[in-house]
């Protein structure tokens, strides 16, 4: 595995910002937390889960983390409306859609999916969101 610094193996200690801010590698696993049941169904993740909010979509780097830790991150970042599920997607699929991944580590492990078409081109946004939803795996938090 060729991830920079093996940061994800440090399960309890806070990751170093200079490490987690490095470029997201193709093989890294990302989670999009889904606090509302309208974002998914028994058929999988819906496109609305990946539609951009103010030009970006929030995801978290979860490679090598166990389920409990991933859920803990979800609850920490969405305390008022804890996630009911998450969409997991490999970074390569985001890059393949022509989008970018910008890690900012605010909060820890946070990455923005950027490079979306303008809001005036919503049909293009929908196509990309549909591609990401189709490429992701639904994990329920019940």
């Amino acid at each position, binding site marked *: 595995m060729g991830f920079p610094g093996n940061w994800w193996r440090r399960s309890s200690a806070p990751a170093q910002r200079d490490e987690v801010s490095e470029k997201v590698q193709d093989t890294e696993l990302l989670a999009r937390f889904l*606090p*509302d049941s*309208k*974002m998914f*169904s028994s*058929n*999988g993740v*819906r*496109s*609305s889960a990946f*539609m*951009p*909010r*103010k030009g970006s979509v*929030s995801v978290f780097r979860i490679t090598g983390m166990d389920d409990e830790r991933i859920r803990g991150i979800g609850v920490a970042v*969405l305390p*008022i*409306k804890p996630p009911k599920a998450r969409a997991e997607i490999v970074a390569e699929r985001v890059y393949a859609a022509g989008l970018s991944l910008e890690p900012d580590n605010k909060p820890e492990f946070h990455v923005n999916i950027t490079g979306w078409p303008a*809001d005036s081109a*919503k*049909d*293009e946004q*929908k*196509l990309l*969101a*549909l*591609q990401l*939803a*189709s490429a992701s795996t639904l994990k329920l938090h019940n």
Partner: protein
Amino acid sequence: MMTALVPFPESGYEAAAGSKGFSAEAAIIREQIDALKEARSRAVTLDTGDRETLRRMNEVAAECGKGDWDAEGAAALSPASFLTARRFLDALPASLRNPEVSLDPDGEMVFEWTGRARQAFSISFGAGGKLTYAGLFGPSTTHGVEYITYGIPRELVAKIQRACATR
């Protein structure tokens, strides 16, 4: 087939209807509420699948009458979007599977159909009958904008059928 009244549960629009406002925005909101009331009182013919879709639409309306339903600052459901979705449902051919109902972060209602792997079609409903769509058909894709005029554009129906055909 049966005749049913279009329901619209408590979703915040009703409460807003009773408020007094004199600004241009208030007038627009009042106009939209009146349109919703008209839709509610209209007797329409619905089959079982349509009733289920309408029930889900009303659920979404009730849940998303206020913004931030996604905990990320999403807009509340747009009443104009609800009306376009309702017009679309009325015109949807019975042969098409019932869509899943969702909401975009900009407040537009969404119908989505999912087939097997990489087979999906999604329509967002805007004001004035605007239909913003995207679809996946295996390696092929489509996206664009259409409008409801005297029915759903035939090309759009064909695309939905294509997304559903191989399920």
